[in-house]
């Protein structure tokens, strides 16, 4: 099966799984369970979003959290003041994307590592500024807390995860996606064959940050109280990076696998050893970069190759 | 200048060498040799693979197939710094000096290999004797030197390794004729001291005037060889490399 066909297959499988998960609330599960799955869904969205720039356009964007944070900031502000939440989220995503395009033009002049640390710096600037400007915790008004329904947020998370899967799948099989992959492989060669690198990179960034902004909006909708600077924290970027690489950067299913593994391991280990999951993931990550750059997806392919020979 | 090569030990023997980069097949079945104390020229147009050949011997490029034997030992799998240790030094194209460092530092580094390090003071004196202008400017950063002086440093640096075989990749490139002559004179002196020389040169008359023998490399293959007098008289060589229509330096295949 061609790679495009495989990706489509995986997209359908994942969407089916999401469809099944939609039935979960009907089983009246514990709140813990819904919260856990919510976290997985949010992580999937964030990771898929990050993967668009990293896996398809080949740039390591370490400022991902900035867009997550901007989406949260704008959504929270609008929603608390009466704007319907979906509209607020759309506004949040729009602001995030606009910001991304503005800095993207400048940022993409940097190559490789400089782009990575440059975006990291930008993210940190934003975080520190927001932290200074809004040092107080943001809490929902009592009336909203009273009317809080988890299942609503859960379905929104499901929808967003589904949207991100569909978006990435559409991108991967499109002409845009092909161009992006060419850039990832060898930017100079791609330019020589007529691929407009900057335009494509900006498109990838726009899509990535729009999704991240929406995820931020979801975060603002979900949490009752948090420090406004919190969603700008670099660990959101690093989490997305880890999930994507461990799962398999540049594939549709990679970030999903990585996200599930990451959240499961984190929650499981958090009971006994806080933060040890990071030690494990750090080591796993190093192993993957050195030995298995395609992540778990590659591992699965190899295993299949050994036993099935069906590649 | 002839020498009875059949009775001298062949120190460098290349046989059936195949090499390239990625999809580019740069060398095909190259076979040649350099005998002890000889000066051998490697001629050919741009892109023929001459630099690739030298880089293979020097250990910068791994050949795909074939053998490179130096004094009976296989070189093709050795790391470049170990090749220097064995007594083969390359003056690379474009000199590749350490610009921010002084003349003396550059030269000293040439003797870095353990075998040469102990003898570096003597080697330094020899280099300064060969190129007196360098002695005067020994503390100057090499990037401040002229092209000709830089080439002297490059040659001197390779000599510091006390090599038995000195290879040069286009030493005359970009130099004024007077300086080219100076470099070539130095090579004669070096060779007289017992060092074999393997020279890649675009300046064919100069190279053949200096060398005992020569090889002709075109399109990655050896298409001709012989004593330099014979090559100079060869019709193809004359037409391609010595005639009035022959294109120098960046010209590519002159035919």
């Amino acid at each position: 099966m061609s790679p495009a066909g495989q990706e489509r297959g995986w997209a359908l499988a994942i969407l089916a799984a999401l469809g099944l998960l939609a039935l979960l609330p009907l089983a009246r599960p514990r709140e813990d369970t819904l919260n856990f799955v919510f976290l997985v869904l949010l992580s999937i969205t964030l990771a898929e979003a990050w993967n668009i720039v990293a896996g398809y356009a080949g740039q390591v964007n370490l400022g991902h959290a900035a867009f997550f944070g901007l989406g949260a900031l704008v959504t929270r502000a609008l929603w608390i003041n009466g704007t319907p939440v979906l509209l607020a989220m759309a506004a949040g995503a729009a602001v995030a994307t606009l910001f991304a395009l503005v800095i993207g033009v400048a940022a993409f002049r940097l190559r490789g590592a400089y782009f990575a640390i440059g975006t990291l710096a930008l993210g940190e600037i934003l975080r520190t500024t927001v932290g200074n400007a809004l040092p107080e915790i943001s809490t929902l008004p009592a009336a909203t807390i009273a009317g809080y329904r988890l299942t609503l947020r859960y379905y929104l998370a499901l929808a967003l995860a589904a949207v991100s899967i569909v978006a990435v799948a559409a991108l991967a099989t499109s002409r845009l996606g092909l161009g992006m992959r060419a850039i990832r492989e060898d930017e100079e060669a791609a330019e020589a064959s007529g691929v407009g690198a900057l335009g494509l990179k900006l498109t990838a960034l726009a899509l990535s940050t729009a999704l991240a902004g929406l995820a931020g909006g979801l975060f603002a909708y979900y949490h009752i109280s948090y420090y406004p600077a919190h969603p700008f924290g670099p660990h959101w970027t690093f989490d997305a990076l880890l999930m994507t690489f461990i799962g398999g950067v540049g594939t549709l299913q990679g970030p999903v696998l990585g996200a599930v593994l990451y959240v499961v391991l984190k929650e499981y280990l958090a009971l006994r050893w806080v933060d040890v999951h990071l030690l494990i993931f750090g080591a796993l990550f190093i192993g993957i970069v050195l030995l298995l750059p395609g992540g778990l997806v590659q591992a699965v392919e190899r295993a299949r190759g050994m036993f099935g020979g069906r590649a | 200048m002839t020498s009875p090569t059949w009775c001298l030990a062949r120190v460098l023997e290349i046989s059936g060498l195949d090499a390239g980069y990625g999809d580019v097949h740069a060398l095909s079945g190259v076979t040649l040799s350099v005998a002890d104390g000889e000066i051998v020229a490697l001629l050919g147009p741009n892109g023929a693979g001459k630099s690739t050949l030298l880089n293979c011997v020097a250990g910068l490029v791994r050949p795909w197939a074939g053998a490179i034997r130096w004094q009976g030992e296989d070189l093709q799998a050795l790391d470049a710094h170990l090749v220097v240790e064995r007594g083969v030094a390359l003056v690379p194209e474009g000199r590749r000096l350490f610009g921010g460092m002084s003349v003396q530092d550059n030269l000293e580094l040439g003797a870095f290999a353990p075998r040469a390090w102990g003898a570096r003071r003597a080697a330094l004196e020899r280099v300064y004797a060969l190129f007196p202008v360098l002695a005067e400017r020994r503390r100057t950063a090499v990037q401040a030197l002229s092209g000709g002086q830089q080439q002297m440093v490059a040659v001197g640096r390779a000599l510091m390794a006390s090599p038995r075989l000195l290879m040069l990749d286009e030493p005359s490139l970009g130099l004024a004729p007077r300086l080219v002559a100076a470099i070539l004179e130095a090579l004669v002196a070096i060779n007289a001291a017992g060092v074999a020389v393997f020279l890649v040169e675009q300046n064919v008359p100069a190279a053949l005037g200096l060398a005992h023998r020569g090889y002709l490399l075109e399109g990655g293959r050896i298409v001709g060889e012989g004593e330099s007098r014979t090559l100079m008289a060869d019709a193809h060589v004359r037409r391609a490399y010595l005639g009035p229509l022959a294109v120098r330096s960046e010209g590519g295949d002159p035919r």
Partner: protein
Amino acid sequence: MTVLAQQLVLGLLIGGLYGLAAAGLSLVFGVMRVLNVAHGELIMLGGYGAFWLAALFGVDPFASLALVIPGALVLGAVLYAGLFGFVVRAHEEARVKNSLLIGFGLALALHALAVRLWTADERSIPTSYSGAVLSVGNLAIPLVRLATLILALVLIGALQLLLSRWRWGKAIRATAEDWQAALLTGIDVRRAYLLAFALGTALAGAAGTLVTIAYSVSPSIGLEWTLKALIVVVLAGLGSMMGTFVGGLVLGVAEAASAATFGGPYREIIGLVIFVVVLAVRPRGLFGR
């Protein structure tokens, strides 16, 4: 006015440590194009080394440099041999990207390990002379911090000397300029890389010790100091250890000026802004070649 002057002096004092922290990162990146973003974690480890030597064995923190530096040298050699040595097999662009990722994983692991072993608490090393202050006019200069600045300068000077006089120091510089030419002169480039990485780690360890002496240490200083080092490297450019040191001083003073003018919280932002501006305008940095 005095308050500003006082702030600037304090900024200068920490700037020296920024310079030392950056020197190790700059050396490694300049020589082998490996961007070790776990550098800050190595600084953190150096700091903990000093802390535990003081806490468990009562070693005077300044004296512990004599133990931390060799220890860090060994750690650097081990990290190179076991990890970064594999990164240098790729060509330059892939190297930078891979080292960034691997450094990230390493930083994550080291940070988590530190939290696990020593908790997230801040630690410092109180000594009998901790509070000593030198009064110059209206300025109060904490002696301990002054000592760390001087030591940082001494260490950078020593490094500079090593690189210009020591046979392998010259080999390292040659490798940084042109590794292929270095190979052709008989230099075992992999050994040069190993030495450079070990030296870089030793500088990080020393910086960590001095940071802990002058301020404090905790697992979270890793990311903070990696960023500081990155800012200074970008500001000063590659190639000059002294230039890097001066770059550190510049950052320290800029931070102090910014904090004095705009208020405390904006101290951190100025460095990042400088970073972004220099990247955009002059990627080679102020002193870089």
